[in-house]
């Protein structure tokens, strides 16, 4: 009993009265006006050793939420044999708020998870069909873990932003079908130092159609309404409404608890949310973009050393072999769907170049890659640059043509010592970037 008294955070009568009366004159305790949002800071995790993608940390004022996205190959549900799964898990640490208890998740933890799950899943924001590997047998299961690190109020919005940011940066390892019967799933490791006898391939990002943004309102007193309530305001509020909306203005989910509100108020909320959702979306996008650029730059550095190793051993024969294989593949690709031709060619070209850099001479056949749309242009550019191509055009549309040119220019690779020269140029390129 007594320990419980110590652990529960409580509010004084003074605070309660002050928050209510200050709102009458449109004032809030942190100096905001009723419809101001707190500052959002999005950071991406670089602390995990093997998996640096798919983790994010979001700060919304004092609120601090960390999110991890992980994937696993599982059997699909019977009724949806060709769809991957998406699940949300929440973790409320007692460090964030003494009222959170260890062990069974509290009501608010379940509610938070449900709101985010609903916003993401029922609006079909994440393309689950592209997560299918073998229909009825293997699909990717995406798991989002949300850790509340500090509770400063409005956990729903912060957790939602964290989940989206983590999903946007998450990349799953590419896998293809192989083996004797063509049914064996081959996982391609994302990095060369992973212990695996399969080819290294760039991991794939998820296909995300739109970003459902949650915005929370608190209803305090009879008529007052605030956006993005703090911890203190949440303790005073009579009701709450979370609206999940995407930047197109489509309502994905609504969650309302507590006192009743007028229809007109709900409509007013929705209008405000549509503006705020746009702001938050652009914030998330800029953060993700800068992270992707950084990652692409890092890739350039990482790929440089192994390509130097090429001229130590005998490169001529293998390079020739690869290039032949590559020509073969590009022919094959041009036969395949003409819509994706550009992208596909880029893709096959990259594989060929990568093998060249990693001295893997064996020719392999690539089946038509269903995920080629998911390939990040930044990564493409980076990989091309790192493999010694001369100038990479900025637009994906032009990539196909220029690569055809480059293939010609790179053809005399089987000469005396061509790889080292291309490596040098690659080094210069990198510095220019």
């Amino acid at each position, binding site marked *: 009993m007594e320990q419980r008294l110590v652990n529960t955070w*409580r509010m004084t009568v*003074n605070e309660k009265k002050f928050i209510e009366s200050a709102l009458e004159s449109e004032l809030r*305790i942190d100096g905001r006006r009723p419809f101001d949002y707190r500052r959002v800071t999005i950071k991406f995790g670089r602390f995990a050793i093997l998996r640096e993608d798919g983790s994010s940390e979001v700060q919304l004022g004092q609120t601090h939420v960390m999110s991890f996205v992980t994937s696993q190959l599982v059997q699909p549900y019977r009724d949806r044999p060709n769809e991957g799964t998406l699940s949300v898990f929440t973790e409320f640490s007692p460090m964030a708020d003494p009222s959170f208890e260890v062990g069974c998740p509290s009501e608010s933890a379940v509610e938070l998870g449900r709101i985010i799950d609903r916003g993401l899943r029922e609006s079909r924001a994440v393309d689950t069909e592209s997560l299918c590997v073998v229909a009825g047998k293997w699909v990717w299961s995406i798991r989002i873990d949300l850790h509340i690190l500090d509770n400063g109020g409005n956990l729903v919005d912060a957790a939602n932003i964290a989940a989206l940011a983590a999903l946007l940066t998450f990349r799953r390892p590419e896998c293809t079908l192989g083996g004797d019967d063509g049914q064996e799933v081959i996982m391609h490791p994302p990095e060369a130092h992973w212990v695996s006898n399969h080819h290294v391939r760039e991991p794939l990002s998820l296909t995300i159609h739109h970003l459902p943004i949650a915005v929370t309102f608190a209803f305090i007193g009879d008529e007052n309404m605030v956006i993005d309530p703090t911890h203190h305001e949440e303790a005073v509020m009579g009701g709450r409404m979370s609206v999940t909306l995407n930047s197109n203005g489509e309502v994905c989910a609504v969650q309302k608890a507590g006192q009743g509100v007028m229809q007109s108020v709900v409509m007013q909320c929705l209008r405000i949310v549509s503006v705020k959702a746009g702001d938050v979306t652009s914030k998330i996008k800029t953060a993700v973009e800068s992270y992707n650029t950084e990652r692409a730059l890092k890739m350039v550095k990482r790929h440089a050393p192994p390509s130097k190793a090429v001229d130590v051993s005998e490169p001529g024969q293998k390079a020739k072999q690869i290039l032949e294989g590559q020509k073969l593949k590009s022919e094959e690709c041009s036969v395949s769907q003409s819509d994706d031709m550009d992208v596909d060619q880029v893709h096959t070209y990259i594989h060929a170049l990568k093998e060249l850099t990693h001295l893997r001479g064996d020719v392999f056949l690539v089946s038509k890659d269903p995920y080629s749309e998911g390939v990040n242009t930044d990564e493409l550019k980076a990989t091309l640059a790192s493999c010694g191509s001369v100038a990479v055009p900025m637009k994906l549309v032009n990539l196909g043509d220029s690569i055809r040119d480059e293939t010609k220019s790179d053809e005399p690779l089987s000469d005396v010592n061509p790889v080292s020269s291309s490596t040098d140029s690659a080094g210069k390129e990198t510095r220019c970037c």
Partner: protein
Amino acid sequence: MTSTTVSSFIDKPVVPGDVILDLSKMTDQTLKLGGGLQQDQDAITVVQAGILRFSKPNKYWIESSHKRYIPTVGDTILGIVVDQRAESFFVDIKGPMVAFLPVLAFEGGTRRNIPKFEVGTLIYARVVKANTGMNPELSCMDASGKAAEFGPLKDGYMFESSTGLSRMLLSSPTCPVLEGLGKKLAFEIAVGLNGRVWVNAEHKSSIILVANAIMNSESLTPVQQKIMVERLLDRVN
């Protein structure tokens, strides 16, 4: 009597394990140790990270900033009434245990006139007992039995900060934040050493301004504090 030896660590940051005094060389002295220090045979060692403070003639203690408060006798604190029993009120003081405030510990308190506080009342009180393993005891009287300034605080706004910030606000000379704000605004303030600050003023906007200025000043140097307060006041006027 030998001349008094003073630790060379005074007003410097210390960490647990630091030996601030060697008693073997100073036989005839009496020392008073405050929070964060421990006697270990002939050595006085630090058990808590913070800044070593010294007060003449012989008091030593460690000052640090925490979000949790460890009660010390004589501290003035802001508590929140959690529960009422026949003998005492249970008061939350941000410590490891709830504190007891005896119903008779008010000026002129008798069995007949027991004060009534609803749960959530903010009380300015003094710590009178703080023994390990026991609930600390508070009092709303000063040592001579007068109410002084102690008692419930009405209206205004209370916010929580760290113990270090409270100490800064109470330090003399007056800290730049309060001095700067006091020049332009009229407000009442009560600072509890347990990291709670209560502010009251005529206008709600000034309460908000003062509260936020104080909360922001935690990690600022005196010069920065001055600049911040000036900017805030400029924006308001």
